[in-house]
């Protein structure tokens, strides 16, 4: 079943590349993927923890236990659900492409296949490899169909992510080689068992921790490594931005929760520079994300940059949840990954629609869009509220859990200060989101654009897509326990 889920986008992409099929095939493939994912969600038994729907082939390299192996546990189910929702939304909201439409659709599907594969892989090799599968389609999508400084942005994201993944590769190998020889395996389930036995001595944890945090951190746009994200998202065509900011970035966080948290908990206490422990450095970096990038966001004058930077900023909260190292904070972080993925996808989808109709996203050329596009305006308002963390949306539930988790973790020192500082981030995001909403949707139509003010509101499918994204956010916000039930067993095992 999981293999089918992986094959659907890949087969469709290959068919598109060979010149068979068209946009309908892409849409069908996305819907099929969503349907299968829903079946997996419903079929997953939350009462039992551990991997389900496991399918394995014989090991290719027996000494490494390297094999094609897929399976899902609660955390991956939630991430798969996110992937399927965002993929469907990305394809349905994607503008019509005249230039080489098949290649475009194939690239979008391949990105989705990469994310899906990474989340359902039960083997370390494929977990890593599938994520990289998305690199080339992203490069082509941004370079060919992007807007603005598209080629510079494409180079930046490709080289950054390429560097990040090679750091990650070295980190993963180092982690692997730090394990005692009899526990080495590429199987994530066996690795989790090894982690539960605290297989790596505390003294040997710091180096892999640094490598993995830097490697994953580059992929997630953790503070000093964040500069690729906003330009890439603003130049990328809508579906690429939605998938990348919504889903692919979560791969790094998923990896941290899967590998770093269970294996290297003791690294956090060790000093790195002077008295600063690894934990302090992580907090410093995430404060950089929340406060520094938050302030940078306020200064932006274009809608796509605001949303791009805001997505970088919100990574700080997820890291805060991870830094708490307790079940409340980590559950909050996982829920926030899901919530942020949906809200940022909705925001980028709406941005793409505005760009398609207006040709520019500069604040001084926008205004009064609410008059002609009330539905879009309401959707944007809801997505913006979700992103700020208004009660009712999943973002609120998860951010609350993150903050509670951090206070609960009993740290007397820096973590308490950091949490209090991070709370101000909510104010910052309210400032830029509400301002963006006011500038774009309220007020008067700027005189430069009066001629084209008669925008049509959305057509049916696009309306439905946005409603589905926001509806899921509301549902998950009102009943967060349904998702937490999936996530909790994995996290409990990871923290053991």
């Amino acid at each position, binding site marked *: 079943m999981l293999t089918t889920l992986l094959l659907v986008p890949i087969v469709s992409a290959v068919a598109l*590349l060979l010149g068979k099929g068209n946009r309908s095939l892409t849409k069908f493939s996305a819907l099929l993927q969503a349907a299968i994912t829903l079946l997996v969600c419903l079929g997953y038994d939350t009462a039992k923890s551990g991997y389900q729907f496991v399918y394995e082939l014989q090991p*290719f*390299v*027996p*000494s*490494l236990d390297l094999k*094609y192996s897929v399976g899902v546990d609660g955390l991956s189910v939630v991430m798969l659900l996110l992937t399927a929702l965002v993929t469907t939304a990305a394809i349905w909201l994607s503008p019509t492409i005249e230039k080489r439409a098949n*290649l475009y659709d194939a690239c979008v599907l391949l990105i989705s296949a990469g994310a899906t594969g990474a989340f359902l892989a039960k083997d370390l*090799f494929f977990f*890593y*490899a*599938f994520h*990289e*599968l998305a*690199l*080339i389609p992203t*490069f*082509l999508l941004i*370079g*060919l169909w992007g807007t603005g400084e598209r*080629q510079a942005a*494409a*180079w930046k994201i*490709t*080289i950054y992510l*390429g*560097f990040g993944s*090679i*750091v990650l*590769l*070295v980190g993963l*190998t*180092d982690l*692997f*080689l730090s394990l005692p*020889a009899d526990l*080495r395996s590429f199987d994530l389930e066996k690795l989790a068992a090894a982690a539960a036995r605290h297989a790596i001595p505390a003294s040997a944890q710091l180096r892999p921790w640094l490598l993995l945090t830097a490697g994953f951190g580059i992929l997630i746009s953790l503070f000093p490594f964040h500069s690729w994200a906003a330009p890439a998202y603003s130049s990328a065509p809508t579906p690429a931005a939605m998938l990348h900011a919504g889903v692919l970035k979560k791969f790094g966080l998923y990896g941290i929760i899967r590998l770093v948290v269970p294996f290297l908990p003791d690294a956090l206490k060790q000093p790195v520079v002077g008295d600063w422990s690894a934990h302090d450095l992580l907090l410093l970096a995430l404060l950089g994300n929340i406060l520094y990038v938050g302030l940078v966001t306020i200064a932006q004058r274009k809608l796509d940059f605001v949303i791009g930077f805001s997505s970088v900023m919100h990574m700080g909260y997820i890291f805060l949840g991870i830094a708490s190292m307790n079940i409340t904070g980590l559950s909050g972080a996982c829920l926030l990954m899901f919530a942020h993925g949906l809200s940022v996808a909705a925001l980028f989808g709406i941005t793409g629609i505005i760009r398609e109709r207006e040709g520019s996203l500069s604040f001084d050329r926008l205004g009064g869009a609410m008059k002609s596009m009330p539905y879009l305006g309401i959707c944007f308002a809801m997505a913006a509220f979700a992103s700020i963390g208004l009660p009712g949306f999943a973002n609120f539930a998860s951010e609350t859990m993150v903050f509670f988790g951090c206070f609960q973790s009993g740290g007397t020192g820096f973590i308490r200060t950091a949490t209090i500082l991070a709370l101000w981030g909510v104010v910052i995001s309210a400032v830029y989101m509400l301002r963006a909403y006011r500038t774009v949707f309220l007020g008067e139509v700027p005189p430069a654009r009066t001629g084209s003010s008669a925008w049509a509101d959305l057509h049916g499918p696009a309306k439905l897509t946005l409603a589905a994204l926001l509806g899921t956010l509301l549902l998950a916000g009102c009943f967060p326990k349904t998702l937490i039930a999936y996530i909790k067993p994995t996290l409990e095992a990871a923290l053991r």
Partner: protein
Amino acid sequence: MFPPITLEILVLCLGFILLLAESFSNSPNKRTIPKIAIFCLGWVFACSFFTSGNPSTIEAGSLWNFYSGDETALLFKRIAILTTIGVLIISMDYESVVAKFIPSSRQGAGIGEFYILPIFTCAGLMLMASAVDLIMAFAALELVTISFYVLVAYMRGNTSTLEAGVKYLILGALSTGFFVYGITWMFGLTGETHLAKIAVKLAHLQDSDIPILFALTLVLIGLGFKVASVPFQSWVPDVYEGAPTPVTAYLSIASKAAGMLLLLRVVEPFLGVPTIAPKVLTVLALMAGATMIFGNLAALPQNNFKRLLAYSSIGHAGYLLTAVASVEGTHTAFGSVGATVGFYLFAYLLMTLLGFFSLTLVSTQSPGDDLQHFNGLSKRSPFVAFCLLVSMASLAGIPLTAGFYGKFLVFSQAINAKQWTLIGIGMITVAAGFYFYFRVVAAMYWQEPTDTTPIHVSPLSRFAMVALVVSIFFFGINPAPILSSLRSPATALAK
């Protein structure tokens, strides 16, 4: 079951027969020659799976004590044969260009040898892979080098080819000189030329180790030239650019592979001596670091695709040397350095050959081989563009391709040996590699074509390219067939 030496004998016989047949034939069409050669080499390749193991013996008076037919040698022989087959196919696509630059009175004159010389080179490479005696290694090396002297300068009507030929001749002869001088010193100090016997003598070395290190340095200079490692790389870009494209492919793959194996074999006895080993490894690590940095950084501004591949080939020599320099503590699950180098070279063979296939097709049907001639290739020929995309992705080390697995093995080897400086350099150079390999992709997919004539691909080339793409993906997911064939002897190789 027959002894491994049969393979070399068969290849040599094939070369001689074709040479004779060619000189007595009046037909202006030389295309039959490569077809026969490819067919026969295919058979030799098949035969290589049915050879009896013939580990080298060092008893006095034993005839074959200079020859080792171990599994590693066999893999390198297969690499040599496969490369030769690929090169012959590329040569058929390239024939029109060669013909243009050879002044001849009648049609087809001078083309035949272009197909036959690689067969002799192949025999030389195969012998080199099996050489466990320095004299034997030297003889094999000369067979390879001399045939390359001719091949590099083959298009004698073209000045840049002549320039490449002269450069290769002078520097090649110089490096051979170093190599022979080094052998002489080794013989003078130990009284032996057989590597295993040298290892025994070295273990009981009484005097200062400076003379023997001097000898090793000389040999390393000679081999450094062959594998294109810094600081002996200066010939590479010019020769690669000027030589006929099939010959460039041959130089960059087979010559490097055989040189690498010889390097491993020569260095091995020295690593068994505790006093000498750290010094040798330091030198190798220095060479590896410098080669990675130079090859990858100098490739960044290149606008000619052949020069780009030349610098990339230097860069890959750096990764290979990194694996060699990480020889210590190799008994891990990842296998030993021999397996790493063997797999890396096999992967390198697949992806580079694919790159050269695409290059030949594009350059023979465009005005040149600069990057701008690849503009819009995805519209001119989606097939060739996709093949080149796979090749570049594999060279850059994207997972699910064979190139990634090679890099993974190299890095794990280095991590295991705690070569953190080399790893740091490697991470930066891999990131640089993303830029210059993806420049080709950007040209093919982002730009609009200046010339929209579709590219014609002959059925044989198409078949070979599809086979290469499939094997790149296959060995990128399942490297076991190569690794398992290397495991046993490779552990013996790295002490």
